[in-house]
């Protein structure tokens, strides 16, 4: 459980919002309550890890509209959609727009805690993934253009000898560059190297 995660509750009914936040706090999460979709848009901090518990039916912007808006803006906070009545087309729409789940009110605490845990897990892995990508990119940025060319050939599976022939350089020079690449990227094997390159899209690191 991530103690830093914030459970964002967006529901126009104060009693429901209060109940969800009491339960969430009892589990050790931090909670932020918003009375409307608009309040959430203006008030929330996207850098905070966590998830959103979102009521479908609210005066003003609906839960589904907020979900679409967040998706279009690239906000990846997982969403648990809640509805006063299980409307199947509505649930289908929410799920196909990327909701983690659809809870029909009234729901049990066990359901809520399970879904929150799942949403937080998804958020964490999304954030880890993003962190790894950023880390790989910053390491990749330290490489010189010459080193990058060699990296590209290594990843494509060429041996030192083949690279040397292709680039018209000595095997020795290639070996030097190869060890500098490995050092700068903090990798000790080809497998690690390939794994790292996967996190960085080639067009962003291999400038030609």
């Amino acid at each position: 459980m991530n103690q830093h995660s914030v459970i964002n509750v967006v529901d126009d009914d104060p009693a429901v919002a209060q109940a969800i936040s009491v339960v969430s706090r009892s589990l050790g999460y931090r909670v932020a309550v918003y009375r409307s979709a608009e309040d959430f848009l203006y008030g929330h901090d996207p850098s905070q890890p966590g998830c959103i518990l979102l009521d479908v039916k609210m005066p003003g912007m609906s839960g589904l509209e907020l979900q679409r808006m967040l998706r279009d803006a690239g906000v990846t906070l997982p969403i648990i959609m809640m509805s006063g009545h299980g409307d199947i087309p509505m649930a289908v729409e929410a799920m196909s727009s990327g909701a983690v789940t659809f809870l029909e009110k009234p729901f049990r605490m066990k359901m809520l805690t399970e879904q929150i845990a799942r949403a937080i897990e998804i958020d964490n892995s999304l954030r880890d993934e993003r962190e790894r990508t950023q880390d790989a990119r910053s390491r990749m940025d330290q490489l010189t253009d010459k080193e990058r060319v060699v990296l590209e050939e290594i990843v494509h599976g060429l041996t030192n000898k083949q690279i040397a022939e292709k680039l018209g350089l000595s095997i020795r020079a290639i070996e030097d560059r190869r060890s500098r690449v490995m050092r700068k990227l903090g990798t000790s094997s080809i497998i690690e190297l390939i794994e790292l390159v996967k996190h960085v899209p080639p067009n962003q690191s291999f400038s030609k």
Partner: protein
Amino acid sequence: MSVLDCLPDMSVPTPTPEDLLKQNRQLRRQVVDLTAAVGRLKETSDLYRIVADTAADAILCVDEQGEIIYANPSSKTLLGYSPASLIGKSLFDLIGEEHRHIPRKAVQSFLSTGEEPDNWSGMELNVISSDGSLIPVDVSFGEVRGEDGHYRFSGYLRDLRPRKKLEEQARERLSALAHANRLKSVGELASGLAHELNQPLSAICLYADLALTQARELTEETDPLLDGLETIVTQAQRAAQIISLLRELIRKNEPRRQPIDLNAAVQAVLHLLKSELETRRIQLTVRLADEQPQIDADRTQVEQIVLNLVQNAMDAMEDVLPAQRRIEIMSQATTDMVELHVVDSGCGLPEGGEQQVFENFFTTKAQGIGIGLGICRSIAEVHRGRILAENATPQGARFILQLPRHQDESGESV
């Protein structure tokens, strides 16, 4: 003194031969004129005979006692008796017993006052046909005074069955729509209730569950407190289930969608509301687009929307002078939608009411429960369309219904 002397002098001056010739000429001329007049009279009488013989309505002529002196051929179609067999019968005997006094009184009133009573040209009566069945007819009387100083009356009997049948159909349709509206009202109520009640039930469930979790840490597994808390949760969920069952039950009334013509639905509803519009002295302008694309919709539900919108427009003009009561109905198509506008010259929307008017239980009418426009919105949404309200200029409100155009198999709008 002779007897002749007692008589008054009857003698006339002896006419001269010239006088006789003159008188003779005059008499000859009169005979010619009379012959011509008789000819013209026969022509006219033949003409009227043809009119009476070919009229689709039954025509009976009676004397002052109500005895039939003429019956046209259509009398047989209506009454089942041949015209010849009707002659000599009493008109009043042909009228259903419960109505018999009406024409009798009218004729008596005419004979005593010499004035046509109010119902002279338009009484709804039942006549008894030869097989004993009662037929509703509209009767109009006419009168003519004969040379003998006595009146003859003509009676036009129009069969009301076709009109009654149409009226009956219209009434049935209207009552079917009203029934659908009532069902939908209950559905809206249940849906609103489900939403409103599920909120507190959610809070109850969560708090009880939380209390249960904490109580388990503090007390023995056998503590009746735990049972009590558990019961709160299960009962709250039972309440939620009852509500959802109710909604399920009402949802059975699912729309049956097929390609339909919105204009036809509009015309059907306007036909039903025609007399209501006339009674309320509302001037109606209808401008429906030609070649309107079809929509995929449930015909009854679309008619419900139109009915509710027009009724809403009529109600909005209660306080407007009759001369200024206007409803305009217009349809048009956009690239992917078909639109219907209903514009009234009534009181307009309350301030900030563009959204509110569609909310259930929102009403500005003393007698309203505020569900009609809510029904319109939920039907529109089920059909993937929408409905908007705005104030019209210089006064009144405009409601715009948008429904998606019919898509053929390839998904093309057609």
